[in-house]
């Protein structure tokens, strides 16, 4: 659960592993202070989200100068798999391409929108649980989710 959420939020397996270790350590250290005001799952989700947010912010600061627009990346390294213009008869390969497109689109979302859509669509949390995990109002969850879906639909629209 923790690893999958970390991976979906950060998009990098190694980063997700590191985040997992941080989260487990924090859970072990702070478990005596857990008051049961929320469910244990929500409490752990909140820790994952906070740690992921910190890590994401740190990573963005550190690598801001190294970020390049998608067009530049495509010009240097070639097009991404989702827009390759040749037929892929193999269904497995097609699913993989679709998954790659989904991850690219997900990683292009702002962190707040990404967290909401991952918690809702992949982890299946209710609006109430998402709000508790993020420490925001339910209305905020609704609006972020609507924007996230809109952005994803724009990115994943078939060409």
């Amino acid at each position, binding site marked *: 659960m923790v690893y999958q959420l970390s991976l979906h939020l950060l998009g990098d397996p190694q980063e997700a592993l590191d985040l997992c270790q941080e989260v487990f350590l924090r859970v*072990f250290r702070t478990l005596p202070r857990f008051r049961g005001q929320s469910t244990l799952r929500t409490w752990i989700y909140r820790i994952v989200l906070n740690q992921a947010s910190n890590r994401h912010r740190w990573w963005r600061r550190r690598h801001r100068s190294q970020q390049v627009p998608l067009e530049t990346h495509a010009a240097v390294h070639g097009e991404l798999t989702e827009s390759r213009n040749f037929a892929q008869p193999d269904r497995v390969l097609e699913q993989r391409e679709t998954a790659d497109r989904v*991850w690219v689109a997900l990683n292009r979302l702002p962190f707040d929108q990404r967290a909401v859509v991952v918690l*809702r*669509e992949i982890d299946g949390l209710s609006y109430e649980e998402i709000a508790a995990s993020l420490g925001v109002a339910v209305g905020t969850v*609704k609006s972020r989710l609507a924007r996230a879906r809109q952005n994803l639909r724009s990115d*994943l629209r078939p060409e």
Partner: protein
Amino acid sequence: VTTAGCALIRADLGAFIDRELPGVQMLRVADHLASCDRCASEVDSLRSIGQMLRTAAERNQTPPAVALIADDVVELVRAENAQSWRALLTRGFGDWRWTLAGAGSVAATSVLALFVSAVLVLGPAPERDDSLAALISNLTSPSGMLFLEASPPGAAKDAMLVGVDNGGTSREIARNEQVMPAVLRITEQQFVEQLTDAVAREGRLVELGSMPESKRRYTEALLDGINRIRSSEPARGSTGSLNVTKIRFVTTTGVTAKGLN
């Protein structure tokens, strides 16, 4: 064709597919979708995004390293708990040592300041003869004694010093009245005669200080009686048996800055 109703419904489509709408609104949206192909298509599109995300997530396998992380963390926490208190304190306060040193200095300075203040407030003060406390003490203390330089008629050279209670303390008067309670019923002339007898011995005056205690009190009572009679009756001139040449008022006080009890 998009209608105004569609615009209202579309705001709820996300919550509709998440089943987060109240029952009445769920029915209203469902009714609309049954009759509106565009909104139904919108719902399908939103659902497909969710489905794509879930399908993509299923492809992600959890690596075996994750299972080892839990063991590593447990070992790490156990190692932390096994550390000595001294190590924990050193680690916890390692960065605070300068703060603690500063706080200790401030505390020591405060204690010293309190000690000096206590010494100044509670300690003995030097005596001063011009302090306000000394003036108050003088005003409230007994008014002292009157002394007469007096001599029998015709014997001015043998002037003696006679102590007279000036009425400042009722205690002294009461003591004299005990010695001679009938003193108030005799006349001034009789007082003077008895005073002459009391202070003269073999034609010489006897000082009060050399008299026995009882006789000295008797003499003071006589002088007190004379004073009383003279304060209530007109003076009769110097026809008495004593010639008073000088009156001295003597008072003694001890003076300290803190006042006297």
